[in-house]
C-alpha cells in the first residue's frame, strides 16, 4: 500500500499504476536488510566489528572504513552469503467500515509467513576493487492477477555496487578516494541516516504506511544506475558526487522486471553528499547533507513531459560504543519540491497544484547491551502540500474505505518502538509496533468512513537470519 502511493507520487501516472505496483513489490520498497557473513569471513571478524552492537546494517566506524576502502580489507574467501526473513504482521483493524476483512492490503494478516530471502555476491576482488551484489526472492512479490487473488514469489536484482578505493595514509594524513557504480542513490553511503540503509531495517510488507515519500528516499532504488566519486579526508570531511540514469538497456539487469514501469530519468540525475565527522573517546558524530535533482518522464515514453524533482536532505548520526554498551541515534530531514511537467493536467486531473512539497522527518535512537539485547524508538513524520486530486484521486475527496484521504494530505506520523535479541551473531529476533497518530492528514475519520489513524497500528515480529 505504501508503495502504490509512493509511486503515484513519483510518476504521477495513474494509468500505469498496476504495472508499477508489480515493480514496486519487486523490491524497491521491500525493507533493505543486509548483514553479510561473506564480509565477516573475509575479515575473519565478528559481525559486531562492522555493525554497531551487532545490529546490522548499522555500521561502526570500522565498518564505515571497511566500506569506504572498497570492501577490500581482509583476504579473499567464498564471496557468497544468504539471508532469509520469516515474519508475522498483525494490523489493529484489518476490516473496512462494513466489517469486511481487507485481504488485499492486509494479506496474510495474523499469519506467520516466509517473507523473503536474498543471496549475495560480496567481497574483495583486488587490492582496490570490491563488490556487493544482492538478488532477492520475495515470496509475496506480486499478485498473480493484479489487484485480486494470491501472490506469487519472484527473484529480482536488489542493491548492487561495484566499488574502487585507494587510501593514502601516513601519520598526520589520511585520504581515502574512491569510485562506485550502483543501482540505488545513497546505497553508497556509510552512515545510517540516509535512505538506503536507514531505519526501519526491516518492516511489515502487508500493512499501510505513509501515502508518499520523497524521491530521494528510495524512489529510484533499482530503477536507476549511476556512478560517482568520493573522498574522505582525515576521518573528518566526506564529499561525494554521482550521477544516475535510467536502469534500462545494458543496465536492465539491475532493475527488477521489464522496462514497462521503469522511471525514465531525463538525461542524468545528479546526487551529492557532504558530511563532517568527529570521533572523541567512545563517541562518534556525523552531520551531513545530501541532494538529488531529477527530471522524470510522466511515463515510459520519453516524449512525455517531465516532472522536476529537487530533494535536499540534512542528516546526523551519533554513536557511543564502549563495551558492553552501544547507543546510536539518527535523524534525517528531507525536503522535496516537485514541479509537474504537464500543466494541462494541473487543476483537472492528476494534481490540483502545479508544485508539491514534501517534508520527511525521521528520528531513531537505539541501545544494545552486549551485542545481544536491544531496543529502539523511532519517530517518522511526513508533511506536505494539500492536494486532493493527487492524494485522494478527486477534488473534493470521496470517502473510500481504508485508503481514503479526505484531507487530501500526505501528513502521516508514526512512532515505532522495537525490541530485539541477537542470540548468535547471524540471527536476530525482534518485534516492532507501528503506532500511527496521524494518517493521510487526520487522526480520526481520515477515510471519510470513520477509520482512525490508530486503526492502522501494526504489530510486527521477525526472525532474520543470514549466513
Amino acid at each position, binding site marked *: 500500500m505504501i508503495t502504490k502511493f509512493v509511486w503515484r507520487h513519483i510518476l504521477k501516472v495513474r494509468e500505469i499504476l498496476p504495472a508499477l505496483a508489480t515493480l514496486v513489490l519487486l523490491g524497491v520498497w521491500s525493507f533493505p536488510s543486509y548483514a553479510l557473513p561473506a564480509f565477516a569471513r573475509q575479515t*575473519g571478524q565478528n559481525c559486531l566489528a562492522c555493525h554497531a552492537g551487532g545490529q546490522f546494517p548499522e555500521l561502526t*566506524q570500522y565498518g564505515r572504513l571497511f566500506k569506504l576502502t572498497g570492501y577490500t*580489507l581482509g583476504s579473499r574467501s567464498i564471496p557468497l552469503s544468504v539471508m532469509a526473513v520469516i515474519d508475522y504482521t498483525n494490523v489493529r483493524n484489518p476490516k473496512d467500515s462494513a466489517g469486511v476483512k481487507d485481504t488485499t492490503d492486509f494479506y496474510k494478516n495474523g499469519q506467520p509467513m516466509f517473507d523473503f530471502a536474498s543471496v549475495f555476491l560480496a567481497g574483495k576482488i583486488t587490492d582496490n576493487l570490491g563488490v556487493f551484489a544482492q538478488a532477492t526472492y520475495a515470496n509475496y512479490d506480486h499478485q498473480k492477477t493484479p489487484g485480486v487473488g494470491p501472490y506469487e514469489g519472484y527473484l529480482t536484482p536488489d542493491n548492487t555496487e561495484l566499488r*574502487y578505493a585507494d587510501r*593514502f595514509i601516513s601519520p598526520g594524513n*589520511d585520504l581515502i578516494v574512491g569510485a562506485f557504480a550502483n543501482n540505488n542513490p545513497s546505497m553508497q553511503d556509510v552512515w545510517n541516516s540516509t535512505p538506503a540503509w536507514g531505519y526501519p531495517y526491516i518492516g511489515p510488507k502487508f500493512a499501510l504506511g505513509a501515502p508518499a515519500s520523497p524521491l530521494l528516499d528510495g524512489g529510484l532504488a533499482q530503477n536507476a544506475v549511476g*556512478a560517482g566519486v568520493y573522498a574522505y579526508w582525515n576521518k573528518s570531511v566526506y564529499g561525494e558526487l554521482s550521477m544516475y540514469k535510467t536502469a534500462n538497456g545494458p543496465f536492465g539487469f539491475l532493475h527488477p522486471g521489464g522496462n514497462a514501469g521503469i522511471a525514465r530519468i531525463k538525461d542524468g540525475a545528479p546526487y551529492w553528499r557532504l558530511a563532517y565527522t568527529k570521533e572523541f*573517546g*567512545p563517541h562518534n558524530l556525523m552531520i551531513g547533507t545530501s541532494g538529488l535533482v531529477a527530471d522524470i518522464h510522466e511515463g515510459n515514453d520519453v516524449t512525455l513531459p517531465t516532472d522536476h524533482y529537487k530533494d535536499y536532505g540534512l542528516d546526523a548520526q551519533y554513536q557511543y560504543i564502549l563495551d558492553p554498551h552501544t547507543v546510536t541515534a539518527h535523524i534525517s530531514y528531507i525536503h522535496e519540491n516537485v514541479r509537474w511537467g504537464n500543466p494541462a493536467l494541473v487543476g483537472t486531473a492528476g494534481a490540483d497544484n502545479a508544485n508539491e512539497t514534501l517534508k520527511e522527518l525521521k528520528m531513531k535512537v537505539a541501545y544494545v547491551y552486549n551485542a545481544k539485547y536491544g531496543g529502539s524508538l523511532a519517530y517518522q513524520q511526513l508533511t506536505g502540500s494539500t492536494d486532493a486530486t493527487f492524494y485522494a484521486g478527486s477534488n473534493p475527496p470521496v470517502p473510500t474505505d481504508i485508503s481514503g484521504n479526505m484531507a487530501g494530505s500526505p501528513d502521516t506520523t508514526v512512532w515505532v518502538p522495537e525490541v530485539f535479541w541477537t542470540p548468535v551473531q547471524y540471527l536476530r529476533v525482534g518485534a516492532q509496533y507501528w503506532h500511527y497518530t496521524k494518517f493521510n492528514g487526520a487522526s480520526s475519520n481520515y477515510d471519510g468512513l470513520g477509520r482512525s489513524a490508530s486503526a492502522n497500528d501494526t504489530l510486527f515480529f521477525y526472525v532474520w537470519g543470514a549466513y
Partner: protein
Amino acid sequence: MKTALYTTLTLAIASLAIGGCSNLERSRDLGNPQVQGKTLAMQVCSNCHSVDGNSINPNFPKLAGQQEDYLVAQLTYFRSHNRSDPEGSEYMWGIARKLTDEQIKGLATYFSQQKDAPNVTGDPALVAEGKALFENGNPKEEVAACAGCHGAQGMGNGTFPRLAGQHKDYMIKQLHILSQTDQRPAGAMMKPLVHGLTPSDMIAVTTYLQGISPQ
C-alpha cells in the same frame, strides 16, 4: 554542470576499470605475505588504533610507544588463538590469522616507534591513590607493586606491556579478564597479583596510568 557531471562519471568508470591493478604499497590484503607489516598497520590497523597508534575510542588499546616484544607476543597469541578474551578475539583473530612472523614484526616495530599522545588526566586525589598502589602495591591484600614489572613510570619492559597513557577503560577491562578468566594464559601471573584489587583500586590505578605522559 552537465559537463562536470559527465566528467565525474568518466572518472568513476575509469577508476573502476583500473581497479584490477595490484597495489602492494597500499594494500589491505591480510592474506598476502608480500604486503609489509607497516603497510597493514596504516591501511588496516589504523581503522581502530589510529595511524599513529593513539586510538581515540577506548574500546581499542593505544599502541603508540608500546613495547615491541609485547606487540609481537599479542599478535602471535591472537593468531594461534592463545588469547581468547571476546573483545579482543572478535576483532583480532581475523586480523592476525594469516599474518606472517615478518609481518607481525613489522607491525610491532611500526607501532612501538610511534609517539604516544597524552591521554586524559584524572582527579588528583584519585591519581595519588593510584600512584601509591602502582608503586607500592597493597601488601595487606598481597597485591604486588605494578611498577616491579611495568617499570617505574609504567613504560613496560619486553613482554610486560607499557601501561603509561593507556586508556583507562581498556585497562579496567583487561584487569577483569586477567583476574577472573583464563582467556589470556600468557598473563596468568597477573591473576593472583590483581586478585586483591577492589573495583575502586582498579579505577584509581588506571586513572593514574592513563594520565602518565613520560617525556
